[in-house]
């Protein structure tokens, strides 16, 4: 049963995890994007559509990422170039994503795809417990696990990472080094949109093999919350996403146990657990928000 819950954590947590890694990059550079939901929807539709046309889920992944990127381009332009309010723009982008994808996605609701399927890794998949939990997933899930340490290395051990973080902390350093902080932010937001798009692809092309209107159902919003839970650290964001996935799997298991608990209470569980985890993390150690983000939240900065 525990193995089932942990497996379920990866299954349903991966799309959220990818989106939260993307959002993390963007927020490290000082831009919060509530439109992640829209980017995920764009990615889900784009990925699904291209998989339908080409039969190749990898092309679908690329296309889905690009659709997510295009969505976030709107955010980047309005926020960085025009100086619009980040939270309001992000929320608008969420509605825009719902509308656009619902409109263009109508023809795809009844389409069937082959998509990504679980590929057990030889030998490793035979390990009891661990094999089922970790080594029997679709390729995107494996890639997403590899992505996390890479992202950590990139952000904290390379010059590029320093530049991204400087954009969110002290842009005067960048200016002194002759680097345009706005350009860095653009890159970070677009990278974030790409990853959110791939998260959408994972949901549509690997996990459910389906497209329906508004299928992301708030997972993008949760991804944004997880980044704060994670104090802007990739490994923690991964843990948070899997915690959210595990809570989903747990509530389904509890339902099947026949215990007399209202399903509506169980539906709240993932959100309540995330809140509780946020609270505990914050209690143990005050997280330090990138400075530019802090200005967004206190309303002293537009872009």
């Amino acid at each position, binding site marked *: 049963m525990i193995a089932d819950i942990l497996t379920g954590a990866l299954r349903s947590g991966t799309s959220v995890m990818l989106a939260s890694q993307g959002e993390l990059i963007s927020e490290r550079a000082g831009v919060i994007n509530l439109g992640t939901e829209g980017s995920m929807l764009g990615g889900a539709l784009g990925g699904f559509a291209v998989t339908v046309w080409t039969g190749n889920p990898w092309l679908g992944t690329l296309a889905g990422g690009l659709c997510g990127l295009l969505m976030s381009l709107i955010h980047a332009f*309005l926020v960085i170039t025009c100086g*619009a309010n980040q939270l*309001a723009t992000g929320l608008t982008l969420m*509605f825009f994503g719902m*509308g656009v994808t619902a*409109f263009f996605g109508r023809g795809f609701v009844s389409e069937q795809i082959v998509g990504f399927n679980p590929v057990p890794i030889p030998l490793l998949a035979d390990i009891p417990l661990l094999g089922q939990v970790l080594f029997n997933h679709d390729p995107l899930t494996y890639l997403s696990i590899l992505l996390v340490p890479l992202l950590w290395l990139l952000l904290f051990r390379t010059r590029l990472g320093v530049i991204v973080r400087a954009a969110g902390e002290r842009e005067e350093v960048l200016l002194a080094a002759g680097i345009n902080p706005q350009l860095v932010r653009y890159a970070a937001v677009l990278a974030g949109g790409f990853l959110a798009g791939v998260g959408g692809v994972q949901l549509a092309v690997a996990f459910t093999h389906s497209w329906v209107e508004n299928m992301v159902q708030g997972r993008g919003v949760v991804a944004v919350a997880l980044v704060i839970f994670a104090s802007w650290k990739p490994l923690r964001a991964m843990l948070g996403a899997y915690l959210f996935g595990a809570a989903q799997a747990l509530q389904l298991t509890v339902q099947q146990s026949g215990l007399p608990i209202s399903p509506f209470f169980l539906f709240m569980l993932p959100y309540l657990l995330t809140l509780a985890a946020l609270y505990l993390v*914050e209690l143990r150690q005050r997280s330090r928000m990138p400075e530019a983000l802090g200005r967004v939240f206190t309303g002293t900065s*537009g872009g």
Partner: protein
Amino acid sequence: MKATAALATALPEGQAPRSPRWRPALRQTLIILAPFALFAIFLLANGVNPLLLYRAMFVSTFGDLYGFGEVLIKATPFVLTGLAAALPARAGMINVGGEGQLAIGALVSTGFAVFLLGGLPSWLGIPLMLLAGAVGGALWAGVVALLKVKGNLNETITSLLLNYVAAFTVGLFVHGLLKDPESFNWPFSPEINWTLRLPIIDGTRLHVGFVIAIVLALAVWYVLGRTRLGFRIRVLGGNRLAAERAGMNVSRMQLWVLIAAGALAGIAGMIEIAGIEGRLRPSTGVNYGYLGFLAAWMAWNKPLRLLLTAFVLGMISVAGNSLEIGSGLPSSSVHILMALVLFFLLGSGAGRKVKT
């Protein structure tokens, strides 16, 4: 008013006066017209004549008292959830929880109406029900406020997450304790007594809830702009350090501002029940919190401007029905038009000046 002109597409660009003094006005007009022009291209690409459609949309909202009433009905909750976002924003906080606060306000006010207030005369029952809604919303916002003040948790994220919890809480009650015994087990509350329904204006579905919303918007405007308390709130929003140096108890102010915001959103929930629905359903007021948030930012978080922006959003929502029924376009197209309007407003600088 500008949106009116935009809908009628009455102002050809070429005729605008060239005088530099008119530049800002021209720009404003362009910003309002541009999304409609873009959307027209989109409509043409889908084989719908945009002029006929815009005309139909215009007629269905301004053609008669009924349509106009529909817009006011729709705008009423946006004003209140907009205030729930605007007030904390002026104190330097982001409340995206209007959605959940509205839901809990609706839940608590329905609960009181069904179990306690049914036998009371209107003059007593309606205010008490309003109070119950306000308390419900305030409690829900109180959770956010406590987490912020005691746990240092960011209010944006907690209020967002609690929206989902609120929706499931409403589900829990309408499937359980609050389920109408005569509903044949369908998930909705019993109908509230007619004495608790808000009075309705003849020939429309318009109830006096919009008057309540306007009065509250005026009240928030007055408090923010004309009182010492409002001054302190604005100082806090402008510079937290300055507020602390001036000896303000920042935590306590944040707490009460968020609670007041929750109460406003909770009243929106009560008005939906007492003015329109008559009973609580699982989907009462869905998305009104988010749309109110957007209305607030379109209005630069100013209460009086908010009346206008909420009206514009209400208009687009109502016109959206004729968009769908008349043209066969899917309902989602309304979101596209709404988002385009907002993108242009946001990009043009509305909402950039958070405080003034």
